[in-house]
């Protein structure tokens, strides 16, 4: 079951990111669906699952990205691992509680991507990129992660109440 879910995420997320998501880019910045999925997998499934999904999604993202190398593979793998670690240290993983860790993880991922994509650039440009891409994207990612986490919680609540009422 997990493998099928994992493969379907690999198959769907990057195509959506490169095609349909272009229409959902306020101020020209799109949320990173792969990062959101990796964080959620880390928060809900733990370090190993988070890292596994992050490496897979990062690898595919690298194939359809302008940059050469394995930056996304590395950062997404790391994010999956760290989000799994964060979920263990939080006393309760609520939507509100995961906002700041996701914001931090997305920013960390963004900083690495920024320095790898603009290796020979000045601070003025880096500041501009930080303000126009990194910060909005991190906010989008964090909000989306919180939103999906909240929806998953609601869905779980509904399914568990349906099960306990004897309908299934």
């Amino acid at each position, binding site marked *: 079951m997990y493998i099928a879910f994992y493969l379907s995420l690999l*198959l*769907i997320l*990057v*195509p*959506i*990111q*490169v*095609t*349909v998501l*272009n229409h959902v880019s306020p101020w*020209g*910045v*799109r949320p*990173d669906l*792969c990062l959101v999925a990796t964080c959620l997998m880390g928060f809900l499934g733990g*370090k*190993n699952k988070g*890292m*596994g999904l992050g*490496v897979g999604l990062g*690898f*595919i*993202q*690298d*194939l*359809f*990205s*302008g*940059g*050469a190398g*394995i930056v*996304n593979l*590395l950062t997404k*793998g790391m994010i999956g*691992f760290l989000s799994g*670690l964060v979920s*263990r240290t939080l006393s309760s993983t609520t939507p509100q509680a995961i906002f700041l860790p996701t914001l931090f993880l997305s920013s960390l991922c963004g900083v690495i*991507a*920024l320095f*790898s*994509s*603009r290796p020979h*650039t000045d601070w003025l*440009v880096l500041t*501009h*990129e930080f303000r126009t*891409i990194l910060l909005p*994207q991190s906010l989008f990612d964090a909000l989306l992660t919180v939103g999906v986490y909240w929806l998953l919680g609601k869905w779980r609540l509904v399914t568990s109440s349906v099960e306990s009422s004897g309908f299934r």
Partner: protein
Amino acid sequence: MSKVNLTVIFGSGVTRVLLAVLSITVVVILLLPRQTQGIFEGVSHPVAQFMAIPIQTLASFDYGIRDAWNRYLALQGVYEQNLELQNEVQQLQSRVSQLREQIIVSDQLGHMLDFQAVAPMETVAARVIGRNATNWYRAIIIDKGSQHGIKTEMGVVTETGVVGRVINVNPSTAIVLLLTDPNVAMAGMIQRSRDEGIVQGTAQGFVRMKYLPPLSKVEIGDLVVTSGLNEDYPRGLLIGHVHRLEKGDADLFQLAEIHPIVDFSKLEGVLVITSSGQLPGSDLLPAPEQSSKVQP
């Protein structure tokens, strides 16, 4: 001070093995990039080819929805007429630029030339099926790859002007870095004054021309074309027009901000230049006096 429990961080068993394998792989890739490139491509190319299927399917779906919206919901007649006129204007603009270039070269040589030979190039038409997978590069994904003869560093154009350069090739798709990306640079020339410089994208998303001679008589509105010094672009392809000039008293060179002729947000189809020709010796000829400017 409390001790950090490493088992909490790195776990045990599976986690440690996974981390070790990943770390070793990364270190090997970073230390031996050339040696591992073949293995990496061996793995990545089939995956990329497979992943191209859902991307192309979604892109077709996306185009279909957009087409339906544009054609049937948003004032069908007006939209089509507008599109037709826009196309015509773009084609005429491009044609005018080409003709200006041809006139300049013709005057320089002093006799009639076969102007088709000025920029003889073979191209492969491709459809834009997506944008870059992250926000960090301004790039597009096209539906042609190494199977269709596309290679890295090939120039990409439309009938209007220069689009960018191929940066990454998979069997059935390729990634094209747009002219507005800071990682793209090419040799350009002010068409009227014949001053050459380097055209490069910026982080802010516009294009600038660097290293223009300090005594250059470049003006706002001047057209910028490819100079032909890059092997991937023939001479005379339209890049854009100058819309701002910058030169401090202590600066060695002038800097021109260029408004690209291609609207990158509406790119749907492109031409990849698979082989481009140059007019022998045309770079050595004296400067002409033809005016090639657009009203800013």
